[in-house]
């Protein structure tokens, strides 16, 4: 194997990855436009463009600019955030089950939000802040419980699943005590929904994405190294504990901001990474591919939930229906090969 041959093979792989990422991005853009155009009233691309560029577009201003655009934008940002957070955990712990929606971090946000609504009669931004703090606190609790004499991925996952079950039962108890008028607001925190998405919901998620994504991208090489085991990574000059803490805090914060905006959209964090891995293949970082897949999943599922059935369903119901069989598929496959994502 000569230097040229290795160089050539690497370039070919990079090119292939570039095309695949380009295709995913194109699909996402197409879905975004479709989500903005389609609805009870159809608006053509010309009118959407007029709204986007701030020109007078008659009655489309409100429906496109205030309803559909923020909804689709939040879908893209939250989906990307869930995908990034999920794949970061899954890669770091070398297990597809390690995604934050399975190990109880989403459950922490949901329980706190429901408690805030039902018990403390909070609403709006207050609930979101409570959910955000709770997600971070749950992640910290799971991490601290699992580092007893050395960090173990499997232990963290099992502790996380236990905590999730515990939190879910608290949520169920709170809901059984809830007043009728609180149920509607509380339900959003169980499945996740883009209903009533506004620009006020979009802003914090967008800022979190702008701040956290570059950090995670810089750390993505260390993330790849950690997959070989702590000792192998450390022997190659990675500051294992520091990198791991930065990656965990970044991923949890991203997830928490997205969850605070639209609830825990079921299974997106869990599905995006493994799907992205199957599309772009092994070797490279999965952060960007998982972000694209997560965004595609949320926007596409929301369109399905809005328009495909007689009833309108929140996006979390659609992703939940897609995700449960996928979970079973991965469990069966993981058992067989002992493999990770």
């Amino acid at each position: 194997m000569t230097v040229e041959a290795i160089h050539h093979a690497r370039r070919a792989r990079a090119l292939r990855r570039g095309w695949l990422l380009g295709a995913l991005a194109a699909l996402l853009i197409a879905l975004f436009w479709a989500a903005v155009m389609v609805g009870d009233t159809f608006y053509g691309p010309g009118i959407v463009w007029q709204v986007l560029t701030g020109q007078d577009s008659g009655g489309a201003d409100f429906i496109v600019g205030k309803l559909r655009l923020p909804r689709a934008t939040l879908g893209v940002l939250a989906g990307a955030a869930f995908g990034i957070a999920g794949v970061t955990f899954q890669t770091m712990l070398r297990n597809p089950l390690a995604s934050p929606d399975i190990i109880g971090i989403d459950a922490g946000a949901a329980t706190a939000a429901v408690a805030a609504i039902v018990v403390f009669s909070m609403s709006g931004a207050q609930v979101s802040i409570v959910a955000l703090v709770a997600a971070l606190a749950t992640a910290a609790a799971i991490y601290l419980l699992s580092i007893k004499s050395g960090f173990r991925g499997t232990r963290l996952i099992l502790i996380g699943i236990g905590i999730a079950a515990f939190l879910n039962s608290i949520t169920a108890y709170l809901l059984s005590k809830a007043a009728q008028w609180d149920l509607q607001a509380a339900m959003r925190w169980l499945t996740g929904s883009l209903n009533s998405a506004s620009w006020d919901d979009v802003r914090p998620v967008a800022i979190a994405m702008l701040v956290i994504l570059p950090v995670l991208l810089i750390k993505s090489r260390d993330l790849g190294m950690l997959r070989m085991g702590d000792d192998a990574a450390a022997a190659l000059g990675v500051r294992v504990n520091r990198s791991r803490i930065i990656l965990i805090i970044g991923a949890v914060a991203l997830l928490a901001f997205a969850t605070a905006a639209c609830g825990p959209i079921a299974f997106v964090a869990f599905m995006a990474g493994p799907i992205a891995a199957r599309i772009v293949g092994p070797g490279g970082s999965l952060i960007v591919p998982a972000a694209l897949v997560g965004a595609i999943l949320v926007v596409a599922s929301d369109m399905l939930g809005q328009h495909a059935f007689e009833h309108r369903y929140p996006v979390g119901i659609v992703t939940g229906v897609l995700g449960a069989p996928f979970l079973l598929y991965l469990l069966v496959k993981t058992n067989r090969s002992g493999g990770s994502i």
Partner: protein
Amino acid sequence: MTAARSLIAEDITLSYGDRTVVEHLDLELAPGRITAIVGANGCGKSTLLRALARLLPPRGGRVVLDGKALTTLHPKAVARVLGLLPQSPIAPEGILVADLVGRGRNPHQKLLASWTKEDYKAVADALEATGIADLAERPVDELSGGQRQRVWIAMALAQDPDILLLDEPTTFLDVTHQIEVLDLLHDLNIRRGTTIAMVLHDLNLAARYADELVAVHEGRVFAKGAPNDIVTEDLVEAVFGLDSTVILDPVSGTPLVIPIGRHRVG
């Protein structure tokens, strides 16, 4: 030839939590030579190797690389000089041989920078030296145990360390591949002048391939020296608690330990 580097453990005490595994241990690795660390299960030999590689900070004492304590050096700077192959590293699913070997370049690469000429050359040389150039584009998952061990050694070679530490590099390999790996490490020691220190289970192979043998017992260096000087029936009894006869290996002229159990003794 790489420059001879010195790696010295000075009065180190190592522990996991409350459990002290190694106490007040001194050890200097012979520069440019092959050192084998042997001892019974749980005697602290792997722990010692992890401390030498900066993976486990000593509770007391220090490990010194070229006159500087390891803990004061930048991790990447240490990794450019000192390589470690852990006992069971995990190959990311589906990764290709060339990509995995390329990860050995991490300590030489800047953040977000792409591969340089040196990176490509180091990877090509490492693949060549370990005889796996024709496997470069194959997924690591598909390889046999012996091939996979060569890939990991190639990764450590691409790292281009002057000192290479290996934790039981022959475990899980059949006898042919054990010899193959040890021959490969010997080649490396001769050609590049790399200082090698490895934990080995097989006392006879250790005695054959090591210039210097370190026998560890209950967290201390029990004996250290050329295998022909230190491997005796008394040493085997003291370190492993095993009755044995030591003869000369007819192939290599090094000590060969013949264990004596309760049965099948003529």
